[in-house]
């Protein structure tokens, strides 16, 4: 540690907490991102009566090499990283994907004019993982 102190850091930290935070919470790592759409954008509002807005969210970011418990990833994810780095780089690295979802209730008009209320499974991403 003394040596580190001796060397001047590349970017002198204005405040230490910000500086150390980038190691605790690495940037661009896999996380949930907000995304909100309205059915009128998809021209579906003629037959989807409710909800007016829909927030499916999405997952994006890098997966760390040693995934560990933060993402609840199975051990296989680390094995896949090892395969990618050591054995065959054509095998893709683990991806940042949704791990948990929430349902969505949709009220629609059917072609015959009847109306249906239905609760659909897995329509809103609530959590991301690497696998």
């Amino acid at each position, binding site marked *: 540690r003394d040596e580190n102190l001796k060397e001047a850091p590349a970017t002198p930290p204005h405040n230490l907490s910000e500086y150390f935070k980038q190691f605790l919470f690495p940037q661009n790592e896999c996380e949930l991102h907000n995304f909100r759409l309205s059915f009128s954008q*998809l*021209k*579906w509002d*003629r*037959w*989807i*009566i*409710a*909800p007016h*807005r*829909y*927030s499916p969210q999405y997952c994006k970011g890098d997966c760390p090499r040693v995934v560990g418990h933060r993402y609840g990833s199975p051990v296989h994810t680390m094995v896949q990283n090892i395969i990618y780095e050591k054995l065959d780089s054509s095998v893709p690295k683990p991806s940042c994907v949704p791990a948990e979802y*929430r*349902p*969505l*209730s*949709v*009220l*629609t*008009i*059917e*072609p*015959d*004019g*009847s*109306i*249906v*209320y*239905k*609760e*659909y*499974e897995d329509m*809103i991403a609530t959590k991301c993982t690497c696998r």
Partner: protein
Amino acid sequence: SPHSRGHVVFDKSPGLFVAPEDTAIELNPLLRLPKGLRRGYALLPPLLKVLSDRGHQNWESEAPRLQPHSRALRYMKRLYKMSATKEGIPKANKSHLYNTVRLFTPCSECKHRHKDLLKGDVHSVDLLFNLDRVTALEHLLKSVLLYSFDTSVPISSSITCMCHLFIKEHDFSSQVCPSISHSVAFSLHFEVRKRKWVEIDVTSFLQPLIATNRRNIHMAVNFTCLMGDPQQNTKLENPINVALVPPSLLLYLNDTSEQAYHRWNSLRHRRKNPVRPRQRNSLRIDPMGDKGKENSQGKRASRRR
């Protein structure tokens, strides 16, 4: 998703992805389904269309949809608000079993009067419901005839109606007039409130038909309405000309397909790692959720607390 690929249902019942015949050819082979599957989910075909190479297809070219009655729309919007949050998420505290509710308006009616049959004005309505949209995986929990009426009767007056419900069977081979297979008679007493809806539970009456996948249900309803309440010994008097809008048919269904939200799965999941104290009441809950009981238990719990 990968985990569902192995489970895509390819048998006769509509499965995971349903595409209208004409677009199935354009979709890539992975998404194409065998012929003969009926359209099942309002949400999925357009998802497929958007995802297919021809996603830029102009929606105007889709066949125009029949517009439902504004009254029916109003009722279903109210049901939606009761069952889902503003973000559209099914309300967690709702203990109802159904994950699908379909409202059908009768597709044909004929009205005629029987002057001398009963005291008061007898209205007779002929109703034909087409239930094609109900899929094989949607199981009936409850069926309700939904009456709304516009009447000049002052609000908060009590009305008693005698109703006669007939199911008509068509014997197409013999070209004879429809025969009446079974009927039920009941009286209905209700207070006219601001929101003029009356729900008549006909679950047991329609169950045998819907269980045999009958898609066309032909009913006739005779009803006579009088002012007053026989139970409170008020004399039934001056028949009212209640212009009842032909009832809609409301089906509460449990969709067992993979796309549908299975409330109990998520509850069971939560039970495995409960994050808050378990619910005390038992899991046997009627399809509509037992509001009354919940309240009394809620009260008792708060009193105990």
